[in-house]
């Protein structure tokens, strides 16, 4: 795991956690599991519900779209799970 040199989570809205994998199959599976976990947490109203409040998961059947940029993935999408290929596309779109 690599931590950002800037570890202050309050400095920038929607600090993003990213999981990269080479396998599109694994990425899709993990997103599905995470979505199930997210729904469980929200529905049960756990003490840590505030952590999930206002957050939405990246859709289980979608990966960063071809036009997605870093800024468009912020805040609302938590966490970002994608392949290295998709992550490169995300960065390239952000450069434009």
């Amino acid at each position, binding site marked *: *795991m*690599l*931590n*950002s*040199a*800037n*570890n202050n*989570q309050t*400095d*920038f809205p929607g*600090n*993003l*956690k*990213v*999981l*990269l*994998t*080479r*396998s599109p199959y*694994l990425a899709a599976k993990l997103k599905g599991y995470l979505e199930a976990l997210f729904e469980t947490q929200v529905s049960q109203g756990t003490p840590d519900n505030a952590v999930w409040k206002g957050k939405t998961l990246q859709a289980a059947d979608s990966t960063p779209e071809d036009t997605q940029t*870093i*800024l468009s993935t*912020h805040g609302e999408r938590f966490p970002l799970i994608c392949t*290295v*290929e998709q992550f*490169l596309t995300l*960065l*390239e779109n*952000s*450069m434009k």
Partner: protein
Amino acid sequence: MSASQHSQRVLDFRIFKNEYWCRFPSTITKFLSADLVFAEIMGVIKGSIGSGDALGAVSLEQYLNTSSRSASTFTTESERGQCYDLYERYEKYKTEQGDIDQVDRVIALLKAIKSTPSFDDTLKQSFHELYVDGMFKATNLNYSILANQWII
């Protein structure tokens, strides 16, 4: 196909084997394996950490002097000379066709990060944690683009 017909196509091993390999001299290719040559080009000649510092492929001399530990597929001077010859032909044809490969993408991103402080700042501020599955399989340049932004 001309460069205008499929510009910026990101080529992979399938394209390399089916479209590029047949264009190389058979006097060289008959002794080498397309998959091993492709891996050598991507992982050593273009993608090694040495090339990452200068953001370019290693020279023939650097490649010939690379330790066998770092590049264990082709270890003799003859094999490496042939492989480098194929690399140069590969780059030439790739440019003519307007294709790019994954290493080209990573190098372009690294250059953009280094030359654009605002983009560099955006990356540093955007991501809090990065988890990478299969890091040991990534080429050194792929690792550089990640570690560049998120070194502890």
